[in-house]
């Protein structure tokens, strides 16, 4: 087993894709870096924290992007965002079997503020364009920084999300919520609470991700291959179903009325047997708890 969480973006790609199949676009040697970081005296990365290109996965052509969580928390700046948008627009033109997005990001790169915000929204539109062209967008989430902010929204615009139990998918990080509304609202140091709220097991049980895997690159590869033919067109019907599903969640009572822990309450309400055991169960046991 090779821990997906402990790999860098480049290491993940090397292990995930068919051997020697990856061709990088706008590679580091082209030095397309962020002028905004330099202006703030922050060191650049030669690839601005995202690796993009073309490869094969089980011999099928895929376009891939991998965000480097260790650089600026994987935050999206002007160049980083434009690399993603370029990749997605190229996918619309060249029609690969799928687009794979190895997402690890805090969302908008705050050091690039406005440019980052506009960039993330351009990525969002581009993902929806690719999806509407019938090309599946598959997001893999398993890095230690999780997938947050605008990228948390982008991920849910994709056809298919694969998460490990180590991964997290959400909008605002626990620290931001704690800073805003206090530790009673969200104790960001309570790791169990953080993972019950935003982690892979929780997202699997609620259906917010489509596959749950171990923290193992081979498992991610297998799940990505399985997702290759699972394009899910966004029809009015699909959106109505999604709307009903999400509207149901508003009926979950607040934590005080939910026997202390609203995550456990929610899982039980979704039909999960033995909901309080969830945090201690292994991934394959958790997988079995949800109706596919």
């Amino acid at each position: 087993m090779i821990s997906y969480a402990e790999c860098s973006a480049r290491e993940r790609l090397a292990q995930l894709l068919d051997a020697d199949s990856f061709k990088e676009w706008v590679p580091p040697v082209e030095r397309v870096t962020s002028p905004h970081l330099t202006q703030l005296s922050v060191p650049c990365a030669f690839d601005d924290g995202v690796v993009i290109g073309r490869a094969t996965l089980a011999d099928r052509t895929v376009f891939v992007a991998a965000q480097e969580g260790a650089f600026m928390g994987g935050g999206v700046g002007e160049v980083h965002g434009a690399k993603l948008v370029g990749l997605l627009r190229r996918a619309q033109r060249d029609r690969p079997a799928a687009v794979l997005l190895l997402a690890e990001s805090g969302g908008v790169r705050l050091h690039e503020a406005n440019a980052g915000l506009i960039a993330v929204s351009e990525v969002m539109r581009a993902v929806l364009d690719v999806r509407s062209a019938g090309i599946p967008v598959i997001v893999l989430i398993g890095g230690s920084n999780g997938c947050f902010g605008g990228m948390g929204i982008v991920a849910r615009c994709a056809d298919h999300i694969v998460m490990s139990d180590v991964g997290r998918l959400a909008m605002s990080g626990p620290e931001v919520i704690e800073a805003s509304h206090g530790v009673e609202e969200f104790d960001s140091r309570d790791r169990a609470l953080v993972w019950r709220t935003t982690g892979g097991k929780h997202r699997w049980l609620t259906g917010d991700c489509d596959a749950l895997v171990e923290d193992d690159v081979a498992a991610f590869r297998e799940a990505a291959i399985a997702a290759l033919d699972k394009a899910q067109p966004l029809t009015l019907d699909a959106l109505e179903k999604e709307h009903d599903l999400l509207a149901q969640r508003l009926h979950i009572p607040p934590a005080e009325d939910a026997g202390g822990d609203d995550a456990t309450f929610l899982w039980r309400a979704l039909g999960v047997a033995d909901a309080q055991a969830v945090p201690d169960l292994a991934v394959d046991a958790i997988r079995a708890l949800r109706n596919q």
Partner: protein
Amino acid sequence: MSDVPAGLETLDFSFSGGRPAGTFAPVLVGVVGSGNLEVMLEPAVGRDCIVRVETSARGFGSIWRAVMNDFHGRHPLAGVRVSINDMGATPAVVSLRLDQAVAEIKGGRT
């Protein structure tokens, strides 16, 4: 304005007397995170090993020179450009990445 960062420090070094590395695909190792650095090696015209370091940890020029001297002693290269983006890595980590980068030229998997 005294707490405004003074800027990144750029350090340039050049070494001669190395063995030609020949043509090779550019190599990148490491990530630009706190206490870390990325090292890129690419072929260069000429017979020198040319090094440029951009670092947020200012004032360590003499340590960088020592580390690069040692590196050139271990791997005397000619016709190579070494480019580094550094966020405060220790000399040990810098040396490790440099050696990893050289290993990749010499046939390690990228």
